[in-house]
């Protein structure tokens, strides 16, 4: 134990050694236009990665999320201080960025430290020019604040996707209901394949969902919600219904009765909502192309009127397609198995191994 502790201590003390203490190094990037270098030299490099820049490229980088802020110090800052004139600095921040508070604090600290080093007359002249902060930073912001975005965009996205979760019972009734009413036996004796039955029932539910989503969107538009690109938004939401119905059919194909199916749906819908909403929230805090894997992110960007790269749309649609193929493939496979439909039903683990080809079907222990 002593040896291990000593090794840790040595590492902590070593200049390039490992550190087990939390570090903020490289926490945020700040573009700075400060020709005199008076401020940029005093910004804390342990927290902020400083990048010298100019107005246009810096704002472009801020817009793309490549930097977390842009700090502008007048080019004649040294002269102004020497002439006892007022000095106005400007800090540009993106309100979507949760790191903005740390940057603001660091810039304020730098200003305060610099103020202490200057004469009181210089300090007064700087303070008198500041209308927004006590530390001499004129802060300009872009974008909506995160809470406002959550209220406006996330809630609207959730409202649009809500109908997709209201029809689980329809899927369950159309498949589990056949088992419970024992009409499934007649259905399976008819000249249809399992795929015909599963896909036929799924299409009926998806069409019902499509109608519901259309009505929902008309109501939202009528209520004054800003929904740009309504056509493609509608298409995305309806296409998202495919894998959701597909996953529900897996549960319905396996479940013996309504009770089992109800429990299965509750758990699976938590999982589906997670897949939809987590990338969306991630995108709001830090835009990333990977967040478009969720059709909800794509939908939000579409109805917000954002310009979307074809790759982002493709990613979302590819995710929908792959998930649909997998889910319908599994449910058709399950529904084709007489032991799953008529019993004795194999356990989930055994079934998974059999579907993966790792265990032979019907092999006794």
């Amino acid at each position: 134990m002593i040896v291990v502790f000593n090794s840790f201590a040595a590492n902590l003390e070593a200049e390039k050694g490992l550190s087990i203490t939390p570090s903020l190094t490289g926490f945020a990037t700040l573009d700075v236009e400060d020709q005199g270098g008076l401020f940029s030299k005093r910004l804390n490099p342990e927290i902020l990665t400083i990048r010298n820049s100019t107005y246009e490229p810096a704002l472009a980088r801020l817009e793309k999320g490549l930097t977390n802020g842009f700090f502008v110090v007048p080019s004649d800052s040294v002269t102004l201080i020497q002439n006892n004139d007022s000095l106005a600095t400007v800090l540009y921040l993106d309100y979507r960025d949760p790191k903005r508070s740390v940057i603001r604090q660091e810039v304020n600290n730098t200003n305060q430290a610099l103020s202490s080093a200057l004469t009181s007359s210089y300090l007064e002249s700087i303070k008198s020019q500041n209308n927004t902060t006590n530390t001499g930073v004129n802060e300009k912001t872009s974008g909506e604040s995160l809470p406002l975005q959550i209220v406006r965009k996330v809630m609207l996205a959730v409202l649009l996707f809500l109908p997709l979760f209201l029809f689980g019972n329809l899927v369950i009734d159309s498949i589990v209901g056949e088992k419970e009413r024992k009409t499934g036996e007649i259905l399976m004796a008819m000249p249809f394949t399992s795929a015909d039955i599963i896909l036929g029932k799924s299409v009926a539910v998806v069409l019902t969902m499509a109608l519901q989503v259309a009505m929902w969107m008309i109501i939202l538009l009528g209520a004054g919600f800003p929904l740009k690109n309504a056509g493609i938004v509608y298409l995305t939401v309806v296409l998202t219904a495919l894998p959701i119905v597909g996953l529900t059919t897996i549960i319905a194909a396996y479940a013996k009765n309504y009770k089992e199916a109800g429990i299965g749906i509750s758990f699976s819908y938590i999982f589906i909502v997670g897949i939809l909403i987590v990338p969306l929230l991630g995108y709001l805090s830090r835009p990333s192309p990977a967040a478009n894997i969720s059709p909800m992110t794509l939908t939000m960007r579409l109805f917000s009127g954002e310009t979307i790269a074809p790759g982002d749309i493709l990613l979302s649609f590819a995710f929908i397609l792959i998930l649909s193929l997998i889910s319908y493939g599994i449910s058709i496979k399950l529904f084709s198995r007489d032991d799953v439909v008529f019993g004795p039903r194999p356990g989930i683990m055994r079934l998974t191994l059999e579907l993966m080809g790792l265990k032979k079907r019907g092999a006794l222990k």
Partner: protein
Amino acid sequence: MSSRQVMINIEGLSKSFGKIQALDNLNLDIKKGELLGIIGPNGAGKTTAIRIACCILQPDQGDIRVDGYSIHHDPLKIKSIIGYLPEEPNLYERFKARDLLKYFAELYGVPTADINPRIDELLELVGMTHRAEDRINTFSKGLRQRMGIARALVHDPDVIIFDEPTMGLDPATSQKIRNFIHQLKGDKTMILCTHYMDEADQLCDRVALLDQGRIRDIGTPDYLKSKIHGDVILQIQVQDPQQSDQDAITALPSVEGLEVVGGKYHISLKSREEISPVIDVLGRRVISVNTKEPTLDDVFISTVED
């Protein structure tokens, strides 16, 4: 039996559910236009066999060929030529009788122009014309069973499979159902699974006795009955039964078997001519004498007990 005459050929059929062997190398041929009865105790494998024939279950081994089509390669073709009536008719409750038949006719791909005449014909066959516009959930079990028969026939199948069609029905309704089945004899190849031996005796051309997944015996009802017992069973009640009576009776050459059931002697005889010598052995102690023809019930019980 030439292969041209065979409508259903079951070959080496085996199926197990977990550790339970439901069918064990089942082999059977059913001729075109024949009505084959399958009788057997609960769990004998009757329903499993017909579910496999309807392509609802998959066998572990073996094959069934229906009109030359294999259940492994042409299940959809087989399904389209089979009409199946399960033990419980299991109909969609909210449909009206006519709408239900129309729905199934459309699913089976019956040409639109033929649907209404076909429905009228079937409703008349099962005596349901007056209830055509009533919902299924207002029907008694007997009426539902009649609707089930109409549903199974809606696409005019070549093969019809009935699984316990009269189970739980009153005698009058059961007889009506039997009459419907009787009307179809000759035109269609039919399989009738039943627990009622008199039903099989009354309707079937041949009867297969299924037990523990294997056919124990098969033949015409008369053949099966003659095989198990003699021509006649003599039931004699005597005063003061004695062991010496039994010894004397079993010593008679025409006696095939003797059982004592509820104080009565049940004696199997080869022919009616042998009744008199048996009575002579017992003399004046005879209280009553009854004769009984062997039934499929006797065949069934005897086979299952074996």
